[in-house]
C-alpha cells in the first residue's frame, strides 16, 4: 500500500484500449473458468510440480478464491476507467490525455490486474523466452504497450512510498 493517490496520465485512446482489455479479462474470469485454459492456468500455477495429489488439493482450496480476487480487482480497475467508455466515449481527439486517479488501497489491485492481463496475452501469444518476439510483429504491440504502462505504474507506486 502506498501513501498518496497515484495520478496516471493516459491518452483517451489508451484508456479505451485498456478498458477493452479489462473487459475481456473480466469476461474470462466471470466465465466457466475452463481448467484447460492456458492463460488462466498461468495465473494459478501448480505449486507442487512433482506431487499431483498435493497440487490437486491446493487447487481445490485456492483456485476459485484466486480468480474471485482477480475479478474483484479487475472490476475495481474498470470502475476507475469507465469514463473512457462514458463521457469520453465520443471524444474526437483521442490523443488528448486524461489523468486517472488511483487511491492508495487500489494500487496493488491495479498492478495485479495489469500484470495478469499481460500474462494472459503472453500465454495466448506463446511468449516463452524474453527475446522470443519480433518487435515489428503487430500482435505484440498491445503486449509491449501494456508492459510499458505497467512499468510506469510501478515507478509511480514506488515513488509514492
Amino acid at each position, binding site marked *: 500500500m502506498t501513501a498518496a493517490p497515484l495520478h496516471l496520465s493516459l491518452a483517451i485512446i489508451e484508456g479505451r484500449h485498456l478498458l477493452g482489455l479489462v473487459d475481456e479479462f473480466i469476461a474470462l474470469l466471470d466465465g466457466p473458468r475452463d481448467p484447460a485454459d492456458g492463460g488462466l492456468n498461468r*495465473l494459478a500455477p501448480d*505449486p*507442487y510440480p512433482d506431487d499431483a495429489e498435493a497440487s490437486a488439493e491446493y487447487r481445490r482450496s*485456492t483456485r476459485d478464491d*484466486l480468480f474471485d480476487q482477480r475479478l474483484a480487482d479487475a472490476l475495481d480497475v474498470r470502475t476507475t476507467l469507465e469514463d473512457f467508455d462514458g463521457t469520453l466515449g465520443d471524444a474526437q481527439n483521442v490523443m488528448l490525455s486524461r489523468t486517472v486517479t488511483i487511491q492508495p488501497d487500489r494500487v*496493488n489491485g491495479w*498492478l495485479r490486474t495489469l500484470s495478469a492481463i499481460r500474462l494472459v496475452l503472453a500465454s495466448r501469444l506463446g511468449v516463452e523466452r524474453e527475446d522470443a518476439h519480433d518487435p515489428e510483429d503487430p500482435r505484440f504491440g498491445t503486449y509491449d504497450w501494456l508492459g510499458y504502462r505497467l512499468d510506469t505504474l*510501478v515507478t509511480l507506486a*514506488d515513488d509514492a512510498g
Partner: protein
Amino acid sequence: MSTPASVPVAEEELTSAPLVPWELVVWDDPVNLMSYVVRVFRTYFGYSQEKATRLMLAVHHDGHAIVATGPRETMEVHAQAMHGFGLWATVQRAPQ
C-alpha cells in the same frame, strides 16, 4: 513482539516442530517486469530494496530463487499471494 510469556511457547515449538522446513521458490518467466518483481518482494515480504533486488536478480540469472523458508502452511499462503501477483511460485521441502 518479544514478551516473557512467549518464550516457553517458542521453546516448546522448537522441540516439537519438525526440523525440516519448507521453501517458497519463485521461478523465472519471460513476462514479469524486473521492477514489478522487486516491488512485490519488497512490499509483500517487507524485504529491503537491496534484498528484493538481489532475489529478483537471482531469479532472473539462476532461473529460480528461494524467497522464503518456514512451515509448509505459511509457504502455501505465500505461494497463493505470489500467484495473486502473477509470479510463478512453487513450494518444496527444504533439502535435509
